[in-house]
């Protein structure tokens, strides 16, 4: 049986056994879900884009049960702390926890996401959320309205390029956004 912490372990494993920051973990699982991870976690819109309290609880469980270890580090520029999640035993992750993606494909994708600037990742997940779940055909205007400071310096273009690269091209058509839109609600 696959428990929620097994999904967390699978994603950290796919990222190379180490995944940096809670925001990156959230956006990675969200984007991998759109590609077939099938985490079963329910997402909602929060201040860094799609966020899952289920995933947050599963991460806590993974740490409580000794599956994943959390290390705290500090950003050099201002000392702000962030988490690094480290898989305790890389041989322990379960193949079924990678969903239809499979371990090899999950690792390719997670590696790409691990190398992406965290704000670009936030923007990519938010664009996907806007058209897919909020049925927002004009997601470009909407994300500029919601995150005016973050979309500058070519970051939005990089986010869209990332989505294209992941084969998650955002829909610019209202009918497609409505037709493909589904509920982000799934239960574990």
């Amino acid at each position, binding site marked *: 049986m696959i428990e929620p912490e097994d999904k967390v372990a699978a994603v950290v494993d796919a990222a190379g056994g180490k995944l940096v*920051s809670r925001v990156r973990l959230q956006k990675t699982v969200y984007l991998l879900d759109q590609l077939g991870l099938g985490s079963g976690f329910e997402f909602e819109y929060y201040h860094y884009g799609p966020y899952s309290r289920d995933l947050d609880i599963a991460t806590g469980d993974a740490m*409580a*049960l000794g599956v994943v270890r959390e290390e705290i580090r500090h950003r050099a*520029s201002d000392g702000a702390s962030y988490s690094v999640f480290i898989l305790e035993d890389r041989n322990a992750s379960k193949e079924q926890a990678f969903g239809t993606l499979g371990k090899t494909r999950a690792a390719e994708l997670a590696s790409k996401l691990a190398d992406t600037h965290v704000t670009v990742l936030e923007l990519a997940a938010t664009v996907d959320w806007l058209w897919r779940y909020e049925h927002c055909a004009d997601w470009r205007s909407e994300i500029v309205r919601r995150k005016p400071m973050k979309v500058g310096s070519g970051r939005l273009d990089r986010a869209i390029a990332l989505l294209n690269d992941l084969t998650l091209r955002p829909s610019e058509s209202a009918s497609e956004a409505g037709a493909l839109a589904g509920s982000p609600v799934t239960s574990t």
Partner: protein
Amino acid sequence: MFERVQKSHAAGRKHEQWTADIIRDEAGWIRPLLDAHRAGFAGEVASLLAAEDPTDIYHAVVSSSFDADRLDYLRRDRLMTGTGAGAIDFDWLMEHIRVREIEIDAVDSDAPGDTIRVPTFCFDSKALPAAEQFLLARYTLHEQVYFHKATRCVEHMIERLLHLLAQRAKSPDTASSMTGLSADHALLRFFAADSPSVRDYLAMDDAVITSALGAMQAAGDTDIAELAKRLNNRDLYKTLDLRAFGEDEGRQTHWARRIDREFKDKLVAGKVIKDADAAISIYTQIGGDDEKVYKKLHVLDQAEGPREITTLSRMIESLRPRRQFTRYYFADETDRDKARQPRGGIR
């Protein structure tokens, strides 16, 4: 709580959006006051409240480590609950508040490349002890007031009651008889609407819900009637806090899974309520993502500029790890007693 009920009934809007709508409302009394100051000013204020991220220092008054909301509730809730804990040195903090730019990106590794900086409030180093006290006050109020088991239990019972009301409100022919409320009651009007108006929203407050408890005891829906009666008589559900099984979080997780399994049907029926959303750290909000960078508290280091306070204060750093308060609330006390019986390998 109210936002969660709205969200599950397809009328989900955040309180910031409602506030912006109230300010923009042409029939309201706020808009003329603001527009009398300068044409279009109400719209600017509303946009500021609805914005996710800051673009200027005015946003910090609404949303930052030292915003007006925090300064209000920390002092008001302490006064109104009568707790002796959680005092802050307001005047000293105000004296030493400064404006500096900080990075707005989510905190992650130090990736090469551009950074975005926005102005926000931070404190002169002389205010470090007062800043520690300020964060400690917020922590203490969460621990002793907002996350008190009775507070959380009542909130969850009311949330369950509102869920049931919202379901019944969607059937206008039976809404009144099944809830005990008059057909034009503010609660039914709000939950019946697909897109509730600002008027419907403003008609909802604590007094409306409290005063409706009497009528709801005559509801045709027995779950509504029972919850209303229990809330009215302060006959609260019985609490089981997972910390009763020890502080080891792995052990708590095993117990939670056993309770989830054994009481699966009653959890679905609302006869047992699980509360996994109360977690506390020096910054964390209830069930939230990483706190926004500009809501973390920065203190000026003379050599390095604004530094996040956990790097300067060992006391605050020690309170950074999140503590989880997972609780179950049981309608039936014998179920609570059964749930905490050691059995099946978990003791």
